């Protein structure tokens, strides 16, 4: 009986978690002009439209540019931040750790709105820069965390050993520490890329028509059209991010990257 209840509960939770994705994917194959669930047939027509619609093509490209820069720059900053907070004890270390984690608790629209004002003040609201900066701030906590966990797991005697063999501190960092951190850095980068590419709330504030990212373009699209194209593109996004997460999990271990578990 207890076992039955347990599995029922698990099933209910799983259904609740996956139902939006399932509904979206199913409605994307609806052949008619309206969004409908359950679908009244099967057609990949809307996928063709999703791929050819110019706004989606442009915003996909924008998103790629922003994601590539934001996650890469965030990774570099994240490595430095994690290294400094893990290895050195200095005045303000706690404050730095808090600031790095702050984007997790500050509402996204607040971050977006704040950067919108900053961008307006600097007159850069029409370019990629402000979007990239916003995304860096948003993904930084995840990258830093991922690298930090890897750092905790780096055996310090390996660094000592390298120094003993004649490696200067810089060489130790480049030849020993960084290579050992690679899984954490790559994992952090992929998580950052997924978060950045699918980020909507803050992006809505800081993007212009010229720099809008895919989620923003999708939002604009639903406001004007109600056909299943939006479901099709959503389905593509769901599938590709799932794939990304799957790769991270298989190669690096999702638990480690998300810092749920340090081994």
């Amino acid at each position, binding site marked *: 009986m207890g076992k039955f209840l347990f599995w029922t509960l698990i099933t209910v939770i799983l259904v609740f978690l996956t139902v939006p994705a399932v509904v979206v994917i199913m409605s994307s194959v609806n052949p008619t002009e309206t969004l409908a669930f359950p679908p009244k047939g099967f057609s990949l027509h809307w996928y063709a439209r999703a791929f050819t619609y110019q706004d989606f093509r442009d915003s996909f490209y924008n998103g790629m540019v922003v994601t590539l820069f934001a996650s890469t720059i965030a990774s570099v900053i994240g490595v430095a931040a994690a290294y400094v907070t893990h290895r050195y004890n200095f005045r303000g270390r706690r404050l730095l750790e808090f600031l790095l984690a702050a984007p997790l608790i500050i509402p996204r629209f607040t971050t977006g709105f704040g950067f919108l004002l900053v961008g307006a003040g600097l007159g850069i609201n029409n370019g990629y820069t402000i979007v990239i900066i916003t995304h860096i701030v948003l993904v930084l906590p995840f990258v830093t965390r991922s690298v930090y966990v890897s750092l905790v797991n780096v*055996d310090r*005697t*390996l660094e*000592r*050993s*390298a*120094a*003993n*063999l*004649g*490696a*200067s*501190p810089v*060489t130790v960092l480049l030849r*020993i520490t960084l*290579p*050992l951190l690679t899984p954490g850095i790559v994992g952090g980068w992929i998580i950052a890329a997924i978060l950045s590419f699918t980020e909507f709330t803050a992006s809505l504030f800081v993007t212009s028509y010229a720099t809008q990212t895919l989620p923003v373009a999708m939002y604009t699209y639903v406001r004007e059209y109600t056909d299943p194209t939006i479901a099709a593109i959503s389905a593509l996004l769901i599938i590709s991010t799932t794939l990304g997460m799957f790769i991270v999990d298989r190669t690096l271990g999702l638990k480690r990257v998300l810092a749920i578990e340090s081994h």
Partner: protein
Amino acid sequence: MSTQPATGQQGDIAVDIANVAKNYGAVVAVKQVSLPIRRGEFLTLLGPSGCGKTTLLNMIAGFEAPTAGTISIDGHDVTNVPPHLRDTGMVFQNYALFPHMTVFDNVAFGLRMRKVDKQKIAREAEAALDMVKLSGMGGRRVKQLSGGQQQRVALARAIVFGPKVLLLDEPLSALDKNLRTQMQFELKDLHRKTGLTTVFVTHDQGEALSMSDRIVVMSKGEIQQISKPLELYSRPVNSFVASFIGEINQLPVARLKRSGQAVAFAFQEGVTLEAEGDHAHLDDNSDVSIFVRPESIDVAGVQGGPGNVVKAKVVSHIYQGTHTVTRIETPGLGLLDMRVGGGHIIDQKPAGSPIDVRISLENAVVLKASGAK
């Protein structure tokens, strides 16, 4: 307290530790240690955990800075020199092999840091692998090696660039017993072939006795004794060394009695043991602690011999193959362990049976009793 060896010419000293102390806040890890390490010797730092031996080793390597004193290598003061410029080769307890590199790259690391040219690196790394009996294993990944092989790679990596001193931090402790014995032979062999000044840290007195030219026994951050293995075993200078090296029985405190040349020790319950030698450094009527090795106690046989025959009772036997450790209880002397060849005694004298034993004080260690026991 310590028997300081005669310091030779500066050229004979590879590493000179002079008045070195190390504190961690209020905790004293090493107290005022002076230790000249001779060129080419195999020196062991021996002591229980927390005695300061590893801290001392880390200070030679440069991982820890002394709070006071200086450390010189080859006559140069290196107290403030960072580890990577010290030219020491260290083997760590967990080997610390670089997991993202092959065996060859691990061994070649020290040579690459010294900007040795490629062909020479290939040659010397292979020669070092050869020396630790891992020829042709250079292409393996570290994870593919057994514990013993990893140990050898760590050794090859530490000696390949010709360090001024080889530092070994309990390198055998992670190996199983058979492998440990084998590695002891190989380490000695390697030391003989390379002639490297070697500092070996261990808490295992067996390893220390079997491999060292000299042993430095440490306790609580201080050197207790510096001696050759044989001397350390037979002539410990204090009760710590006596009880730390090998098995030993500590007899209850006795009173030394002199009559002419003869010396005797009087215990409780009227038991008296006659001493060997004159113990000239001890006063008449002073209290002494006496330490007797199990091999100095034997069953009193038909033929007489030196030593005192004492009546005792068998408490228990521990059979060890080549010999048996028999625990006996003696009025006035308490529980004593004796070492008897073979295992016949177990049947001849079962637990509870009376036994006459001969206690030889020829190799006993007799020290002035310290105030607190």
